[in-house]
């Protein structure tokens, strides 16, 4: 079994295209005919989805059940260098790092030390990417005493020890404060649980009672995956199975090569800013990227990126690699299946010890997706000007993660993790249309927890979860709207808030579109002496004066957004934001960027936006040159466009 080619242009010659090789050549290269390869690949995709569904159905942990914070993959054997050929439809940051995580974990443990029925684990960000909460579970698949494949899952565990319950905080200084680091170890050995490994985890983490049933479920899903892989090998033969894994990676590589070829040869630079780390706000952090593109190859150089942060807002190099793969996939060919082959013609060159290639023990890694998300933004920033209409506008940039815990009046402890901040928000617009409004960062691909679940599990009432008006970056296609979330807390609480990108827009424009505006976070303490139900908060700028700002660039007096003359408020000026019963937390995300000239937007689309309250009447005139007459609240059906006034506005010399 050989792959057709495995390295970027070592010879510089044109590779034979997969569709152009003869049937005989195909069978020679991949151990089966084209039809069989397609059938096996689809059956393997079914396998990872089947594993995912099983886990989702059985999981006890809310972050699995409500967020889909896990992913499944199938990798090839050590002698093929562990190609990651099949991925589930789920969390992209997990998929991007799992290929390397499996290789690094198995190589360190020693494939010769593995047996049928083993489950190997590792959660070290430097060995496998992401953060310590994300544990990799790896099960070897044997045929006739030889490892032929691995079925894998990475799943977020609600707690991995360290100084902060749940772990989501930018304030931890190093790997020791961060949480338990598990090197490659067996969790099951020949289908028997390894008690010492379980004890290591339960003795060093909180909420083990939630972790244990999830571990058991993961074990069952891996056994299911193994069984389905073996059924395929039994039915189609080992050569056809292994050849299909190679074929899957070669397909990604070929399509990514074609996509890269669309970029004009040259050198492109871009950057993205992170506001501050968790120590103080004296340093902001820049991700700097230079893409050098020649023919079918790209070298992505992260030189110029800030040194690693003093607290755990860093990511590891495998996350940076994932981000580069995601950014190029989204910009160039979103249909490319995300396998190891995605990176065949991409080299990532990075100095060690940066914000996005941090080193232990001081370069702690927790909020990894924030740093690697800035890599995505920087690649967009670099390539958008070169791509013209193929450019893609930026997203809301930060999950603005919220974590809180406390004890209710009757003494019941509660915790709320990644539900009540600005975790969900908009995407930017593309040549295909407006940006989506309420989704997750480009490379996450999670679910949104249900309001009923959130209110059931914690003493909180979700007052608002809505699209904020005039927050999509104007363009021929509009950016998605920022999300405005108000939560009322029925108990005293300790809150951790981590918004990282409020200083400059993350929702960069594309093809002449405008960036989306930035958001912020405020806490509204209960009014003095008010024992009745707190009133809903308005959304006009005058409501903020009584607030305690947590983050954002705000007017020093009114505390309303003021991106031009405002003052930056630092999210970790208090490590823990303590709130009284009756406090309201407001999180406003950044807006998505617009695509194309806003004055070229079809006036009918602007009218529809006014009716749906994506755009105000004033915003329609100011941002789009469209004069809308009427009131969207009292008479939505009566709204109309003043054609003459619109023409006059749009034809004004700018």
């Amino acid at each position, binding site marked *: 079994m050989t792959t057709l080619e495995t390295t970027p242009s070592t010879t510089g010659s044109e590779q034979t295209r997969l569709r152009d090789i003869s049937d005989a050549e195909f069978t020679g290269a991949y151990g089966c005919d084209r039809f069989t390869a397609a059938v096996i690949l689809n059956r393997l995709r079914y396998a990872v989805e089947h594993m995912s569904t099983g886990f989702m159905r059985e999981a006890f942990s809310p972050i699995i059940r409500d967020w889909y914070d896990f992913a499944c993959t199938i990798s090839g054997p050590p002698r093929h260098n562990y190609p990651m050929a099949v991925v589930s439809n789920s969390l992209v940051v997990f998929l991007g790092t799992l290929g390397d995580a499996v290789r690094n974990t198995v190589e360190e443990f020693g494939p010769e030390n593995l047996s049928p029925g083993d489950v190997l684990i590792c959660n070290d960000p430097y060995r496998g990417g992401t953060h310590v909460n994300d544990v990799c579970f790896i099960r070897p698949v044997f045929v006739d005493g030889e490892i032929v494949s691995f079925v894998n899952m990475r799943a977020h565990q609600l707690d991995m020890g360290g100084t902060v319950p749940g772990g989501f905080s930018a304030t931890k200084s190093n790997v020791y404060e961060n949480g338990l680091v598990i090197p490659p170890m067996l969790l099951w050995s020949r289908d028997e649980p390894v008690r010492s490994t379980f004890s290591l985890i339960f003795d060093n983490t909180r909420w083990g009672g939630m972790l244990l049933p999830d571990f058991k479920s993961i074990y069952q899903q891996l056994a299911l995956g193994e069984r389905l892989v073996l059924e395929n090998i039994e039915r189609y033969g080992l050569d056809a199975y292994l050849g299909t894994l190679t074929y899957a990676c070669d397909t990604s590589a070929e399509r990514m090569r074609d996509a890269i070829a669309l970029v004009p040869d040259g050198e492109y630079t871009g950057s993205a800013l992170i506001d501050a780390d968790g120590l103080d706000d004296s340093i902001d952090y820049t991700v700097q990227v230079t893409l050098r593109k020649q023919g079918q190859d790209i070298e992505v150089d992260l030189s110029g990126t800030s040194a690693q942060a003093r607290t755990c807002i860093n990511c590891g*190099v*495998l996350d940076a690699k994932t981000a580069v793969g995601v950014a190029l996939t989204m910009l160039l060919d979103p249909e490319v299946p995300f396998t190891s082959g995605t*990176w065949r013609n991409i080299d990532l060159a990075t100095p060690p010890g940066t914000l996005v290639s941090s080193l232990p023990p001081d370069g702690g890694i927790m909020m990894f997706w924030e740093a690697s998300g800035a890599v995505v933004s920087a690649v967009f920033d670099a390539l958008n000007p070169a791509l013209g209409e193929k450019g893609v506008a930026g997203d809301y940039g930060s999950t603005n993660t919220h974590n809180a815990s406390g004890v209710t009046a009757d003494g019941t402890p509660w915790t709320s993790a990644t539900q009540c901040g600005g975790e969900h928000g908009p995407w930017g617009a593309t040549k295909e249309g407006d940006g989506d409004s309420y989704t997750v960062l480009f490379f996450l691909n999670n679910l949104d927890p249900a309001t009923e679940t959130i209110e059931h599990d914690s003493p909180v009432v979700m007052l608002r979860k809505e699209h904020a008006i005039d927050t999509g970056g104007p363009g021929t296609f509009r950016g998605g709207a920022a999300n405005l979330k108000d939560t009322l807390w029925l108990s005293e609480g300790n809150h951790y808030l981590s918004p990282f990108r409020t200083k400059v827009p993350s929702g960069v424009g594309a093809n002449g579109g405008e960036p989306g505006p930035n958001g912020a976070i405020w806490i509204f303490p209960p009014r003095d002496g008010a024992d009745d139900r707190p009133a809903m908060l308005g959304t006009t700028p005058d409501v903020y004066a009584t607030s305690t700002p947590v983050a954002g660039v705000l007017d020093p007096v009114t505390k309303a957004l003021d991106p031009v003359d405002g003052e930056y408020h630092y999210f970790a000026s208090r490590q823990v934001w303590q709130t009284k019963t009756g406090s309201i937390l407001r999180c406003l995300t950044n807006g998505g960027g617009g695509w194309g000239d806003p004055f070229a937007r079809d006036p009918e689309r602007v009218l529809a936006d006014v009716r749906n309250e994506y755009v105000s009447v004033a915003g329609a005139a100011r941002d789009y040159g469209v004069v809308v007459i009427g009131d969207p609240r009292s008479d939505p059906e009566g709204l109309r466009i003043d054609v003459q006034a619109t023409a006059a506005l749009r034809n004004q010399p700018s």
Partner: protein
Amino acid sequence: MTEEHDTPPTPVLERIPVHGDCPRCGAEELRRYPVVSEGGWFEVVKCQQCLLSLDRSPWSRLGPIQLLTDLL
């Protein structure tokens, strides 16, 4: 800004010059440095003009990170 700190220096990737010229484009600008790509870390000798890799050898498994346990 609440207080002033010295911003730490920006780390630099060392690209070691290699004698010779590129067999594809003729440029006399070959450099040796680590990259991460499909298959993990490699030390490459690469033309800085046309990106041709003259050599790609597997590098340290975790890149610049060394494990103390590797000394066992």
